[in-house]
C-alpha cells in the first residue's frame, strides 16, 4: 500500500529470480527477517536449525487448513543464506524447483498464504542497497533497467486482465467505492439529510463484495492445469502405435500392444508427472470408419469424445504406410489448435520418405481447409519411433512449450501471484469490515479497513488510490449549503 512504505520494508518478499520462460529449473527467492517462518510453513522438511549456504531437499507442501488434504506441490532444493551473507543482506531462502511456470505460480501463492508478499520490481536490489550489499552505481543501473521495462510490463498486466476478468474486478472496485462513499458521506455530510444506506444494506453489499472476491481468489488458487493435469488424447488408425506410445510415455506396460489392428477397444487412461507437471494420456480405440464390430464402434465413439475434451490431441500415423485416406478422414474431425502430428515407426523409413510425407501432409485437405502453413507444421509435426526412448523427452518438451507459451514471461506469473495476493488481502479486509459492522463500530473504523481493501483491488487494476472517494461522494449525493 502506498501509505506504508516503511512497513513494506519489513515484510518478507518473494519472487522468481530465474530468467523468464519455461526452463529446466526455476529459483524463487524469499527475503526478509521473518523469511524462515514463512518458508517453514511450506517446507516442513527443513531441519530444526538451518545452516547458511546449505542445501535441503524435499517437497513443498500446500498449506491447506485441513491436514488430510495437504498435498505436495513440487520436489525442490532449498538453499539458505543467513543475514549479512545473502544477496539482499537479509535472511534469504532460495527454492529451486522444476522450471514449470504453473508450479512456480503455486509455490508463490503458498508463500503469500504463509505471510510473504510478491516483491515489487527492483525491490531485492533496493534491499541489497539499503543493507549495503551493492553500491550506488549498481543500484542505479538496475533502476534504469526497471524504468525502461516498466511501461511494457504495465501493458502486460493489462493484457492479462483484459476481458471478463478485468470487468469483474472493476465491478468489485465500484462496489467498494460506492459503499465507501456512503460511509464517508454519512460522516462528513451528516447534516445534509442524505439517503444513506442502512446497516442491513451495508451488510448486504459487503456480502456481495465478499462473495465476488472469494470467488476470484479461489479461481486464482486452483489453476485448472494443477487440479486436473494436462490431458493428452491419442488419436489414429488401428495399429499405428498409439498403445505403444502410451506405454513409452508413462514408462509402464499399461496398454496391450499387438500387431493385430483393433487391439484397443476402450479408453485407457494413465498418468505421469514430468518436471512436476501432471499429465494424463488417454489411449483410444483406433478409428476405422468401415468397422462393423459393435464393440469397436462404441469404442470409436468414445475415442472421438476423448479427443474433444482433451487439452491436446496427438494424431499418430504410420510412416511405413504413409498418409492414407482413412488418416485424412480422422484428421478432418480434429481441430488444429491443440493438435500434434506424430509420424510413428520412423525406424522403418528413410530420410527421403520423411520429407515426402511432410510434403504430402502439406497438400492434404486438412491443411487447405484450416489454412495452415509451414510455420504451423514445423512446430506441430514430429517423427518418432516408440522403439527409441529418446523421443519421450522430446515429446514432453513439445507439450510443455505449447502449454506454457501463453506464460512465456515469468513476469506474467508474478503478476498472477500478485493479483492473488492482493485479492486475498482485499478479501480478508472485507471480512473484517463485516465483523466490525456486526460489532456496531462507527463508520470511521469501517472506512479505514474498507479503504485498505479498495487499495488492494485498485492495485490489481493498476490504479492508484487518490481521492476517488471524495469524487464519488459528489457524484452520488446532492450536497451543499
Amino acid at each position, binding site marked *: 500500500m502506498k501509505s506504508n*512504505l516503511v512497513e513494506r520494508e519489513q515484510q518478507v518478499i518473494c519472487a522468481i529470480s530465474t530468467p523468464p520462460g519455461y526452463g529446466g529449473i526455476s529459483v524463487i527467492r524469499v527475503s526478509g527477517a521473518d523469511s524462515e517462518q514463512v518458508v517453514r510453513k511450506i517446507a516442513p522438511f527443513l531441519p530444526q536449525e538451518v545452516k547458511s549456504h546449505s542445501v535441503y531437499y524435499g517437497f513443498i507442501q500446500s498449506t491447506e487448513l485441513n491436514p488430510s488434504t495437504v498435498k505436495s506441490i513440487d520436489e525442490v532444493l532449498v538453499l539458505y543464506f543467513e543475514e549479512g551473507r545473502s544477496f539482499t543482506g537479509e535472511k534469504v531462502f532460495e527454492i529451486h524447483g522444476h522450471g514449470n511456470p504453473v508450479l512456480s505460480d503455486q509455490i508463490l501463492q503458498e508463500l503469500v498464504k504463509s505471510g510473504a508478499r510478491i516483491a515489487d520490481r527492483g525491490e531485492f536490489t533496493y534491499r541489497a542497497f539499503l543493507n549495503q550489499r551493492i553500491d550506488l552505481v549498481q543500484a542505479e543501473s538496475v533502476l534504469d533497467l526497471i524504468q525502461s521495462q516498466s511501461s511494457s510490463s504495465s501493458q502486460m498486466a493489462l493484457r492479462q486482465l483484459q476481458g471478463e476478468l478485468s470487468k469483474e474486478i472493476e465491478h468489485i472496485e465500484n462496489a467498494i467505492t460506492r459503499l465507501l462513499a456512503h460511509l464517508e458521506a454519512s460522516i462528513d455530510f451528516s447534516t445534509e439529510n442524505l439517503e444513506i444506506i442502512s446497516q442491513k444494506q451495508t451488510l448486504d453489499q459487503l456480502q456481495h463484495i465478499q462473495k465476488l472476491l472469494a470467488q476470484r481468489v479461489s479461481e486464482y488458487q486452483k489453476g485448472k492445469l494443477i487440479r486436473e493435469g494436462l490431458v493428452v488424447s491419442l488419436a489414429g488408425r488401428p495399429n499405428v502405435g498409439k498403445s505403444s506410445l502410451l506405454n513409452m510415455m508413462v514408462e509402464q506396460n499399461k496398454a496391450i500392444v499387438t500387431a493385430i489392428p483393433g487391439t484397443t477397444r476402450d479408453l485407457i487412461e494413465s498418468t505421469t508427472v514430468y518436471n512436476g507437471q501432471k499429465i494424463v494420456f488417454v489411449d483410444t480405440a483406433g478409428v476405422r470408419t468401415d468397422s462393423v464390430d459393435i464393440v469397436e464402434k462404441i469404442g470409436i465413439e468414445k475415442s472421438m469424445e476423448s479427443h474433444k475434451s482433451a487439452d491436446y490431441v496427438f494424431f499418430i500415423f504410420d510412416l511405413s504406410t504413409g498418409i492414407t485416406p482413412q488418416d485424412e478422414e480422422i484428421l478432418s474431425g480434429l481441430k488444429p489448435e491443440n493438435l500434434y502430428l506424430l509420424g510413428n515407426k520412423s525406424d522403418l523409413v528413410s530420410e527421403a520418405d520423411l520429407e515426402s510425407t511432410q510434403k504430402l501432409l502439406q497438400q492434404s485437405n486438412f491443411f487447405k481447409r484450416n489454412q495452415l502453413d509451414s510455420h504451423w507444421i514445423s512446430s506441430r509435426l514430429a517423427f518418432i519411433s516408440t522403439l527409441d526412448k529418446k523421443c519421450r523427452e522430446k515429446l514432453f518438451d513439445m507439450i510443455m512449450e505449447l502449454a506454457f507459451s501463453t506464460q512465456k514471461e515469468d513476469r506474467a506469473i508474478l503478476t498472477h501471484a500478485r493479483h492473488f495476493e492482493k485479492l486475498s488481502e482485499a478479501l480478508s479486509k472485507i471480512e473484517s469490515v463485516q465483523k466490525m459492522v456486526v460489532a456496531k*463500530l462507527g463508520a470511521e473504523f469501517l472506512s479505514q479497513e474498507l479503504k485498505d481493501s479498495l487499495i488492494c483491488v485498485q492495485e490489481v487494476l493498476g490504479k492508484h488510490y487518490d481521492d476517488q472517494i471524495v469524487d464519488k461522494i459528489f457524484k452520488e449525493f446532492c450536497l451543499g449549503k
Partner: protein
Amino acid sequence: MADLSSDSYQVIVVGAGHAGVEACLSSARLGVKTLLITTNLDRIAYMSCNPSIGGLAKGHMVREIDILGGEMGLAADETCIQYKRLNSSKGPAVRGTRVQSDKDKYSAFMTEKVLNQKNLSVIQGEVKRLVLEGSACRGVVLQDGSIIHSNTVVITTGTFMNGVMHIGLEQSPGGRVGDQATVGLSDQLRDFGFTVQRLKTGTPARLLNSSIDWSKTVPQYGDTEFFPFSLRTETFPKLKQIACFLSRTTEQTHDIIRKNLDKSPMFCGVIEGVGPRYCPSIEDKITRFADKESHQTFLEPEGLDSDLIYLQGISTSLPADVQYEFLRTIPGLENVKIVRPGYAVEYDFVEPTQIYHRLETRTISNLFLAGQINGTSGYEEAAAQGFVAGINAAHKVLNRDEFILDRDQAYIGVLIDDLVTKGTKEPYRMFTSRAEHRLVLREDNTLDRLFDISLNLKLSGSALEEKMIKLKDERQNLLSYLRSERIFPNEQTQNKILEMKSAPLLKPATYEEFLRRPEINYTDFVKKFEIPAVADPQIFEPVEIEIKYSGYIKRQLEIIDQQKRLERMNIPESTNYSDIKGLSSEERDKLSRVKPRTLGQAQRISGVNPSAIQSLMIFLKGRKKLKDLPSDNSEDRSSHGQSVETR
C-alpha cells in the same frame, strides 16, 4: 490607532478577514511590531457567507487554533446563538462542533480584539503593490502611493483580488456585496511568474425576517448539552439560543429555475472559475440531480437583533427577478422580501504548490500567503492558515524555527500539507476523510495532541496554560485510577453487570479492562457501581475513547510511527530530479514542481509511485554513502552471480 510616526513594521498583514485577524494577532502576541491594513474597517472578520463556525473537520480546526492560542474559538463561543454537536451518535473520531454565531457580534468581538492588541496597529487602506528588492519583499505600497516598509508581509485578501460578482448575466467588480474588488496585487504576482488562476463561489439571498410566514416552516433547535470550542470560555452559552427553520423547494421552484437556466452565468459559460462541488448552486443541484423532487433549506437568522435571514442550501446566481419568482414557491416564503439577492463571485487565487509549509512563497522571500488566496474556502480554513502564517512571519523576524504542524498532529497540518503538496482545482474545504489519521485527530483530544507544541509556541498566555496543565493532569489521574481499581466477580457485581446487559465476569478486571466492553459506557458504569469518579465529560471523554478503541488507535499510532521515518528524511531543496535514476518523466515533473521537503511528502504527491520513492531513497542514501562509506565487496554476491534480477 495606527502608529504612523514610524513608517516601518516587522510584520504587515494585508486584509482583515478570518485569516488576517488570526495572522496579526498571533504575530503581535509574539512580541513583533505588526500592522494590519484592510480596505474596510467596518468589516473586520466579517462572515461573507453563512453565519456559522465549525462543523465536521472545521470544528476540529477551531479547537486546534484555540489550544495553540488563537482567537476564533473564543469569538465563536462568545457569539453563539445555536449550538450543535454533529455526529454525536456516531463514532468518537468524527464528532464535530458547529455553532451559529451572531454575525455582527462576531465581527465586533474580533474588531475589539484587534484594536486593543499590544504591538498591533490597524489602518484602513488598499494595498496595491509589494515593495520588492530583487526577490525579497520589503513592504507594501498603498493606493495613495505611500510606502510602508516591513520585514515580512502576510497577504490574506480572500475573494477580493480581481473579484467579479455575478447576478444573472450582469457583472460588477467587487470582492463581496458592499466591498470593492482589489486590483494590482495578483497582477504583480502573475507578472513575477506566479501561477494565478480563477475560482468561483456563491452565496444565497438574504431575506427579510418579517416577510416570512414562519408557521409553514419546521423549527430546528440546537443541543442542550454544550461543549464550547475554547478552553478559555467560562460561561457558555452567553447569548440567548434560537432556532433555525426548515423548509423545502417544490416542483414549482424547480420548474422556474429550469426555465431560466439561460440566465444563469454558470450555465452560459460566463463564469470561467471553478466552483466548489460541495457547495453547488441550486441551479446545479436541479440539473445534476434531476430526479430529486425537493431540496431542503435551512432559514438561519444572522443574529439576535438582525432582520436578515440566511437561506442555507439555495446559493444562486440567477437574476434578482428570477430569484424572487422561485423563492416565493418555497413554503413560508410566499410573500418574501429579498434584502440582498444571492450572487456568485469569481476571484484570483495563487496555486498553493508555490508556497512552503510555513506559507512563505518559494519565489519571493518574506512574503506569506494565507486564506482563500491559497485556494481554500471557509472561515476555519482561512483562520487556520492565517494563524500559522502570522506565527511564521513573526518567527522569521525573530529568527526562530519555522512552525509546521504534521498531518498526525492536527487537521491544520493536513490542510496545509494537502495544499502545498497537491494544490487544488476547486475551492478546498476540509473533510474528515482527508485525514488519514482520523482516529487520533479527534476534537476531544485536541489538548493532548497539541499540549507540548502549544507550550513551546508560547502564544496561549498563562491563564490558558494553567487550564491546559490542569485538564491534562485530571485526565491522566483518571486513567491511572481506572487502571488501578478493580471489580471482582461476586454476586453483587454480576447482577449489576447483568443489568447492564453485559456478560458475567470470569475473573477480576480493572475498570479499564471492563470499559473495553463495547456495550459498557463510562457514565453508566460509574453510576451503577457508585464510583466516585469525575463526571465532567471534558475530562473523561478522551480517556474513555482511548480505552474503548485502544486497539484501533494503537494500530494507527504504529502506522504514524513508521510514517515518521519517511517524514524525517529530508530532501534538499536543491535536489535536481533529472539526476535521479529510475523516475518517469511525469514523476520528475511533479517532484520538481512541488519540491517536497521530505520523502513522506513526496509519497503523497499523486502520480508518484512507490518505485519512485525507492529511487529517491537510494539517491538520498547514496549521496551520504558515497561520502562516508567504503565500497562494499562481499563474497556472497559472486555466489549469486548467476541469478538474474527480474523484478
